[in-house]
């Protein structure tokens, strides 16, 4: 049993206990969301949506061997996927402001990182999710398996295929040395 399981059990009925969980995991969730969407304002809105959904759903949450933070990452992935799906539908409507998800942050270097970021944004939602959990959230494959609800072997396979597709997209781009991509 994890050390914070008692805190999670208390948070089902006590808002102050939920506040302590909020203080523990807010920064990690915000960083993950911000790296996924590439926009600070959008990241704030989506992070607020993640915690609001977690507050409502924590009373139904049951400890089944999966850490509480993995459950938060799963909620964040669903919120981001819903946002992308909505943005894709809106893109078909003319005269509406288009939200460019995965916009390059001004703080990032331009050449190589920009190219990698552009290639990353061109990947599918599934590839971006697994790569974000690995490189943005810094989770290990077993931890990613807890978030995605699959086996660690499946996580290794998904990571390998996502890297291959990213490598294929970066081929031909002079800004990036493809050999540096594993």
């Amino acid at each position, binding site marked *: 049993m994890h050390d914070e399981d008692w805190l999670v059990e208390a948070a089902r009925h006590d808002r102050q206990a939920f506040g302590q969980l909020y203080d523990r995991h807010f920064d990690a969730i915000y*960083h993950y969301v911000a790296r996924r969407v590439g926009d600070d304002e959008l990241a704030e809105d989506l992070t607020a949506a993640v*915690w609001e959904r977690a507050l409502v759903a924590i009373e139904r949450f*049951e400890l089944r061997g999966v850490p509480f933070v*993995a459950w938060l990452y799963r909620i964040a992935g669903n919120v981001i996927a819903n946002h992308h799906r909505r943005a894709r539908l809106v893109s078909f409507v003319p005269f509406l402001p288009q939200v460019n998800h995965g916009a390059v942050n001004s703080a990032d270097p331009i050449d190589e990182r920009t190219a990698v970021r552009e290639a990353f944004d061109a990947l599918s939602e599934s590839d971006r999710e697994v790569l974000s959990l690995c490189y943005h959230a810094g989770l290990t494959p077993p931890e990613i398996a807890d978030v995605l609800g699959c086996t660690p072997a499946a996580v290794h396979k998904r990571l390998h295929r996502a890297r291959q597709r990213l490598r294929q997209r970066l081929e031909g781009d002079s800004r990036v040395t493809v050999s540096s*991509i594993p």
Partner: protein
Amino acid sequence: MSRYHPSPNASPANDPLVDLLGGERRLPPPAYREALRSRLLALPAPAGVPIDLPIVGRIFIGRRTVGLVGVVLAGVIGAYLAATGEPGGTAIVAPAPAPPAVAPPAAAPPSLIAAPPASAARARPDRAASIAARRLVDAPSIARVRRAAGTTAAAVPAAPPNREAADVAPPPAAAPPLVDAPASAGSTGGGHGAGAGEGDDRDEPSPTATPAPTVVAVDGPAAPPAPFLPPEPAVPTAAAPPEMPTVAPPAPTPGP
């Protein structure tokens, strides 16, 4: 720090994507963080009745919904009980009693002189009478035919007395003339001797007397069978019926 919190050294070693994709760590503005915390803790608690289900998990149902569902269930149960008419349990309907077994009517033995079925006799007395009358007429003629064909009287078993036919049947009508016609009283003068001898045979037929080989009485047309009765099978096992008094043909009157 828990293992789920990212650190600069948590990524795989010698992986260029760590630097290419990772970048600097994104931190939220402090004001935003505190404002969101306050807003979340101030939200009202979800109202409802928590129900823990085995597979789905814990679900919440509003109190109003619970009340409505309870009322509906009570109404359904009450309607069902009112329809069945019993306070509880299912109504047990006893099976209908089996109809009494009707014994098949006993088949009448295929006998020529066999008595008609009692049920048929009771149902149609007139039919039974016609049957009995027909038997009385046919049985002697059949026995006579057998004798004429060479069948001995001993080989033919005696027929059981047809009591029922005798009780039901009316007195037989005048029998058709047979082989030996009885001599009339007025003609006994001329053929007395012959008539006497014939009269002896006529009155008491001897069981050992040989039957007349030349004269074969031909009975009149047999009475048509009853319309609703099956035809009688010709069974040779019937016993010889009692002899009817024979009527001898009148003796030829001598010439003048």
